[in-house]
């Protein structure tokens, strides 16, 4: 299996401050790839560049062999690349069901012209809802469909966030600290959930995580970012034993 995402020599600077310096990395299809680094090392900036928030100053981003740098976030998503946020941004006063119903791409009923004509979209709506019901029951949150997301627990919110991307039919999902702010057990749960999905749906995950221990258990491959530069990469063990990394983490 070839790389699903390639970042080639991407640089990005804000007002003279270089957040990313010539970063190049690959994400293999079907893998869980980790991205670690101390605060302010440009991890989230990289995600934002990939997801189309920022346009890179130089370099290219390829998704499934197509350039996606310079596309807008919605277009990137519609190509099958979803992202989550470090602190989740669900549509809090809407129900779980509505949140999930939003994610499928290109729904007929979402065009202003077709929306009033119910019979045009009701069938599709029904199908989507069925899928979502199956999915939810598989994940075990089916009974939450009626609750407003603001009332859910942290772990559930993270699940919903991740599920959005999956239900959108994304093939690559960028997760920004999925386990942040959760107790260890819950965090681990989230990662197991990710892992199972990866197996069952053949998805690829690109994960930022501070919980290095968790990441080391689940990731296949890890990149280390430091001061906007790629410091080291490799299998978890190699990275863990890399003196550079250790110095960076202790002295960084």
């Amino acid at each position, binding site marked *: 299996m070839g790389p699903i995402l390639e970042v080639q020599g991407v640089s990005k600077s804000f007002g003279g401050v270089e957040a990313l310096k010539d970063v190049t990395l690959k994400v293999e299809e079907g893998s869980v790839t980790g991205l670690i680094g101390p605060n302010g090392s440009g991890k989230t900036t990289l995600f934002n560049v990939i*997801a189309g928030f920022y346009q890179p100053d130089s370099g290219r981003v390829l998704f499934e062999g197509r350039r996606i740098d310079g596309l*807008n*976030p*919605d*277009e990137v*998503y*519609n190509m099958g690349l*979803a*992202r989550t*946020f470090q602190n989740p*941004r*669900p*549509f*809090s*006063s*809407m*129900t779980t*069901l*509505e949140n999930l*119903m*939003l*994610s499928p*791409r290109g*729904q*007929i*009923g*979402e*065009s*202003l012209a077709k*929306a*009033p004509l*119910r019979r045009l*979209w*009701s069938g599709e*709506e*029904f199908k*989507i*809802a*069925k899928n*979502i*019901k199956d999915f939810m029951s598989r994940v075990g949150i089916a009974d939450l*469909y*009626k609750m407003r997301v603001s009332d859910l627990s942290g772990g559930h919110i993270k699940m919903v966030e991740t599920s*959005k*991307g999956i239900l*959108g039919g994304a093939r690559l999902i960028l997760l920004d600290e999925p386990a942040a702010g959760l107790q260890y057990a819950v965090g681990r749960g989230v990662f197991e959930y990710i892992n199972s999905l990866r197996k069952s749906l053949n998805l690829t995950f690109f994960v930022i995580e501070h919980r290095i221990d968790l990441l080391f258990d689940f990731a296949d491959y890890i990149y280390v970012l430091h001061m906007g530069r790629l410091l080291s990469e490799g299998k978890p063990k190699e990275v863990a034993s890399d003196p550079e990394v250790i110095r960076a983490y202790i002295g960084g």
Partner: protein
Amino acid sequence: MFDVVSFLISWLTLFGIYAILALCLNMETGYTGMANFGLVAFFGIGAFMTGYLSISSFLSYFGYNYPIYSLDAVIAMGRVSDKNPILNIGVFFLSLTFSFLVSGSVGYLVSYPTLRVGPAFLGITILSFGEMTRVFMRHFQPTGGAYGLLGVPNPFAWVQQPTLKGLLFLLLTFAILAAAFVYFEVLSNSPYGRVLRSIREDEVSSLCIGKSVPAVKAKLLFVASGMSGVAGSLLAFYLGSVSPDMFGTAVTFEVWSMVILGGRGNHVGALLGALVFSLLGRASSAFNFLFPGLAIDPNYVRWMLMGAVIVIILMYRPKGILVEKPVRTEAWRVFEGEEGRMVFHRKIGGVIKKALWWLMGREVR
């Protein structure tokens, strides 16, 4: 003594016009979260469009060639406005359509700043846009400039009996209001409505799940502004005259308070708000009439009330009197079985059917 019928007619007509505005604002603010403080601009554009179209078409049809704001034109209109019912009705619908299109297109263009700046800035931007429109209309000769337009032909000018005339116009207004209501209700109970709400909740994350937010906003502004334009056109026909000073910011704020009172994100609520505030306006003048020479003018009290209501509602019932309900689509059927299907207009349909059965003397099954 007090003429209840004509009171109801005159009140409900103005209510109808304002209710349409309230619905539009509710679409923009309640659902999409766009702080449109320039509503009045589209209202006014619609009104002027109507004045221009109707009068000029009448004059040309009857072969006058006065400038439409001249005295001769007004006199001529007075003479011919009740000659040809078909023309009246035709012109009415024609100008309604054009008002919709023109105001809508303007709204579409105005949506450009909405993707450049955030809510607070948007509010100010559109607010000043509204003021700009007013100043511009004052200088715009084709629609009479400062003179404004007089003699807009009422679609029912050919009806002699004033009460009947008022009633007919009221019915027309309500028909349009009902159409707008059903349209918006259906719209907001569709996947599209869901997208709108997601934008209100968090436009960035809505953008991140593939909704092209700017496009959605622009289209919505087209529809909502268009409907505001229709409201303006109705006003023009009702008053029979249009002048730039009718479209100050105060109108916008009144509509805002209606929507807030009724409940953002709930069309019935918007109607309720409109009902309450338009009645309040009547009440204050009636009150003034009943007890002349009060220490404090009831009009002040009324406005103070309006302000207080806004604040209090926001504090103790932020979602308004009627809170918004989740979007009802087929999706609920999957989870809740049949009753999930009951969407608003079907409910209405059910009620009507029951009523018919009842009228026909059968028992409701």
